[in-house]
């Protein structure tokens, strides 16, 4: 009897956490999304969202930028993780990759403002070699660069773990059976590390959907994503209902991504 009550006690912190910080906010945000700015129950927020060109464009922007950021980080992270796997002292290298994530996001954003600005390091250098100062800050490229920089550790780690778990003898077996390096990569290494890639895509794409501070600090508010819109509705226009509606849309988008990248039950190869 005593044993089962201790077991229950172990669940308490987790269940409390879940109820207070996951379920309650979800319920609140869904509830809130059905009220207009005057506190009347309505479905108009959703109607507005799906009929307004602005919101559709914002949604498209968010998905598009998140997609670009994910592709850029993946393109950098997979080869990095693969090379890391064959490096000596890989734990040290991994630590160096994790290190920047311990620093606050805003600090990093401000550091990049310093680097990219008219009097920043890069432009000073460009002026010296005579190419002259260029506009870096507040461009799409700068936004994608900084966002990718911030997300890269979250992509490298799961892929690195996936490659570490890959049994080297699969690679040897593939070569032994006549496969060239590229064939081995596409037929064996990639399929067997795809779960790491999926985890990385989840960890990067979903947060990228709602990035908002970077869009302002680095992107100069030229890119308005759903994250920015939510912030505006809650802090500026005070239209909590609309903000919540966008929140709900984001949550649904996250679930769709999770479903698409999640481990699905393996198709049975045997015919009945």
């Amino acid at each position, binding site marked *: 009897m005593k044993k089962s009550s201790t077991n229950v006690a172990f669940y308490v912190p987790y269940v409390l956490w879940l109820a207070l910080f996951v379920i309650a906010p979800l319920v609140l945000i869904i509830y809130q999304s059905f009220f207009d700015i005057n506190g009347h129950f309505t479905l108009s927020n959703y109607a507005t969202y799906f009929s307004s060109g602005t919101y559709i464009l914002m949604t498209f922007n968010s998905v598009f930028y998140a997609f670009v950021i994910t592709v850029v980080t993946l393109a950098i992270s997979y080869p990095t993780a693969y090379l890391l796997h064959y490096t000596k002292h890989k734990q040290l290298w991994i630590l160096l990759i994790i290190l920047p994530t311990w620093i606050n996001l805003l600090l990093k954003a401000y550091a990049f403002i310093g680097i990219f600005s008219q009097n920043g390091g890069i432009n000073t250098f460009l002026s010296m070699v005579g190419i002259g100062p260029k506009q870096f800050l507040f461009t799409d490229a700068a936004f994608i660069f900084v966002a990718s920089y911030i997300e890269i550790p979250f992509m490298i780690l799961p892929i690195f773990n996936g490659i570490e778990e890959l*049994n080297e*003898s*699969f690679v*040897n*077996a*593939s*070569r*032994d*059976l*006549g*496969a*060239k390096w590229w*064939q081995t990569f596409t*037929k*064996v290494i990639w*399929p*067997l590390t795809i779960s790491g890639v999926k985890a990385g895509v989840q960890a990067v794409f979903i947060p990228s959907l709602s990035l908002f501070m970077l869009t302002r600090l680095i992107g100069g508010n030229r890119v308005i994503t759903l994250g920015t819109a939510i912030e505006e509705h809650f802090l500026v226009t005070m239209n909590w209902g609309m903000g919540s509606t966008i929140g709900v849309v984001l949550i649904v988008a996250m679930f769709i991504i999770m479903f698409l990248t999640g481990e699905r039950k*393996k198709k*049975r*190869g*045997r*015919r009945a």
Partner: protein
Amino acid sequence: MSKTIIELKHVSKVYGDTVVLKDINIEIEEGKFYTLLGPSGSGKTTILRAIAGFLDPSQGDVLFNGKRINEMPANERPVNTVFQDYALFPHMNVFENVAYGLRIRKTAKKDIEERVANALKMVRLNGFADREISELSGGQQQRVAIARAIVLEPAVLLLDEPLSALDAKLRKDMQYELRELQQRLGITFLFVTHDQEEALALSDEIFVMNDGEVQQSGTPVDIYDEPINHFVADFIGESNIVAGHMIQDYLVEFNGKTFECADAGMRPHESVEVVLRPEDLDLVAPDAGKVTVKVDTQLFRGDYYEIVAYDQLNNEWLIHSTNPAKDGENVGVTFDAEDIHVMRLNETEEDFDARLESYEGE
């Protein structure tokens, strides 16, 4: 004499300060079953990897049909490997695993189906093509690994301790199947194992390895009956090894007595080691024996009793007898001149072979 297909010439491998292979010279002929036998760390798998192309020898040449293939990448070598852990691709089913090499070779779809079906039939797995790897038992996975390698019809099949993960019964069954398969296919097998019984049962020829060197090579019977040195005698089968002196040809002295033997070619009074196999020793009455020993312990092994006894000089004697003895009893041990095998200390394989030839031809 059949054709030599693989030859290692003065191959050595060094990692930093560790010497893994020392001047290996091996010739592999077509259509035979070869075994590299040795304790773990003796370098046998290293040799296999050098032939498969997963490892560059520090020195020496790997020859295939007389042509040096040191620089040829693994995927172009006409050999295939059955890995110790099988290395079956977990994301493919049995059919796809076996078809892998054929697909890489861009074989026509119809041919693939036919050859995969044939290979699976060869390892008695017909009807398993659609199974997932995770649904197979260890023995079945092992056979898929073999099918995946033989479907490509390699000139040489390399097997890296393929039976070590199987239980005793299954291992025995697979030994028969491997031997049969090799004879049916006519492909050269190069098999790596640390299990001497397995090696003796399967091989046409055995290379006994220790410390990165080939200690002795020859047929199972040669190696069992005429081990070259202490290591081989001790590693292959069970043996009583006693220090002695060679009095003259065909006369050896050990345990304070002189015995007739079948060995010759040593210097007079040379220090030697004498090997007596436990199954060659017979128990007789104490006064009828060539050596008298006192029985210490005995174990019933099913088809024989394994008796541990000590003589007056406190040497241990291991005797296999079909009849039991009594603990603590004094018994006589007898053996024939042919049962004695005399080994010189530090004799090279070349000298050993030459010496054997010099008097056995008579």
